[in-house]
């Protein structure tokens, strides 16, 4: 007994040591490759923090631009809601054919899963740059870029949700002689609706952040505004943009938390 205990403790020690040393090794390797120096990081941090506190605060000029910022922010918010809503509907339809629960044809099933994996894994920046060539500095560039990655992400999640949550009631409805459409509307939708909405709300929040990034690349929306002020070194106005984004994201986060509690 005593000996067993000792070996367990020893094994645990060895395991901890291995994990710790491999993390350390990864850290050292990564630092060398990226030329990241911890001292620089530590040194830069207080400097950056004090810069943020002193210089990265809205000034008088920034507030004169407030209406313009709000305008772009609203556009970005509307964009992310619209993208997510449409992607939710499209992804749900696709996921019906990608789930194993509903026994769609094997080839169709694989095709849907491959399509979803493709759209999920191609970075949204690639979509943004690709669409820039054809749509230019247009809101549709951001819309489509966000749509593609949201669609890919949601399709995979919905397939998992349907297979996890609906398989039992789908079997029962199948046994009553209900047809595909009836099973979807009476079984799949009611049993997954909470999960679908939770995912959609999460994606709205994520898409506001992604829209900022894509905006920088495609010169649209709130991202463009930030980039413009930033490049002109008008940090007061840039900081106001950041504050507005933060407020918007937190508002949306709180609304979705409340909703999630009500609909569960």
């Amino acid at each position, binding site marked *: 007994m005593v000996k067993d205990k000792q070996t367990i403790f020893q094994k645990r020690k060895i395991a901890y040591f291995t994990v710790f040393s491999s993390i350390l090794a990864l850290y050292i390797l990564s630092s060398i490759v990226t030329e990241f120096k911890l001292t620089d990081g530590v040194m830069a941090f207080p400097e950056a923090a004090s810069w943020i506190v002193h210089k990265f605060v809205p000034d008088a000029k920034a507030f004169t631009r407030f209406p313009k910022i709000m305008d772009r922010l609203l556009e970005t918010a509307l964009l992310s*809601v619209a993208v997510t809503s449409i992607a939710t509907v499209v992804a749900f339809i696709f996921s019906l054919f990608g789930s194993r629960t509903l026994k769609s044809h094997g080839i169709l099933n694989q095709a849907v899963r491959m399509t979803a994996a493709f759209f999920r894994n191609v970075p949204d920046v690639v979509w943004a740059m690709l669409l820039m060539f054809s749509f230019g500095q247009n809101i549709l560039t951001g819309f489509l870029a966000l749509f593609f990655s949201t669609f890919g992400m949601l399709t995979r999640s919905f397939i998992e949700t349907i297979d996890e949550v609906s398989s039992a009631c789908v079997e029962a409805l199948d046994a009553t002689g209900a047809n595909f459409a009836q099973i979807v509307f009476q079984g799949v939708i009611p049993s997954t609706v909470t999960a679908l909405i939770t995912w959609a709300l999460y994606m709205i929040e994520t898409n506001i952040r992604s829209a900022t990034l894509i905006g920088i690349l495609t010169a649209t929306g709130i991202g463009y505004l930030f980039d413009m002020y930033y490049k002109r070194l008008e940090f007061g106005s840039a900081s106001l943009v950041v504050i507005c984004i933060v407020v918007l994201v937190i508002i949306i986060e709180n609304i979705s938390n409340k909703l999630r509690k*009500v609909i569960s």
Partner: protein
Amino acid sequence: MSEVVIKYENAAGKQNNTTCQDSITCNLEKNIFGKIRIAAHSKSNLAIKILIISLIAISTIAFLTFDYKEINFAEAIMATLHNVKTVFLEPALRRDTVMGVAYQLFVTFCLGMLATIFGALFALICSLFCAKNISHPAAATVIKSFVAVVRAVPTVLWVLIFAVSAGLGSVAAVIGLTFHSFAYLTKVYAESIEEIGAGTIEALRANGANFWQIVCQAVIPATLSYIVAWTFMRFEINFANAVAVGAAAGAGGIGYNLYMAGSMYFDLHEMGFLTYVVVIAVIILEVISTKIKTIVR
């Protein structure tokens, strides 16, 4: 159906079931159309309906108010299809060597790795003070709000903000990526810790264990598998973010190559090649992460 309901028969029937035996439908209620109601009354169904209607309304407003700048839609779509074909069906590498690209991919990988290591380290410490069941409630609220603000700022903006004083490079990229990772991981770690049964912690407290003993003996062992799973998931996100930040902020790695190919040289073939490299890397990471999750469980 409808939320307004008219009682079908007397209310007494509901209170006293024995009088109800002879009347067949006394428990049934009617809806506003005079038909028998079948739907359950619940706040949640109502909330879902309201939410769906609002989402449709907001989306409609969005499409009506967008400034499309008189774009020729058909032309744009045809051009897009052509470009998609070039990028995904005719990838080629012209401006760089395979080794060069592999190295840049590795740089991106390492940026994501550093951000994950730092983020996880700080988040682990911070989450101990922000889980309601082991920390002071006031401290938990303060830290949670702070973390929510940090999380609300897009990663690319953190990188750009730090780039002003640290210069655009790996330091800014790592700090920027770390900020968002830290905030995200603090939240999910704290949620895992809050799910530990109150009994476990109470028992240790009753035995006179102090804060750090509780952490080492109960909190860490109970949450380890969640922490590992979340950390790996975050690493996947950090890798993707490192690509995005490289492209949007010029912070190095394969993302920067993508940006140069797409926005400087307008070389769609090269963009295609780089995209495939990233996609394959992401899929490999996903496979590894799924494996690790099953091992840890």
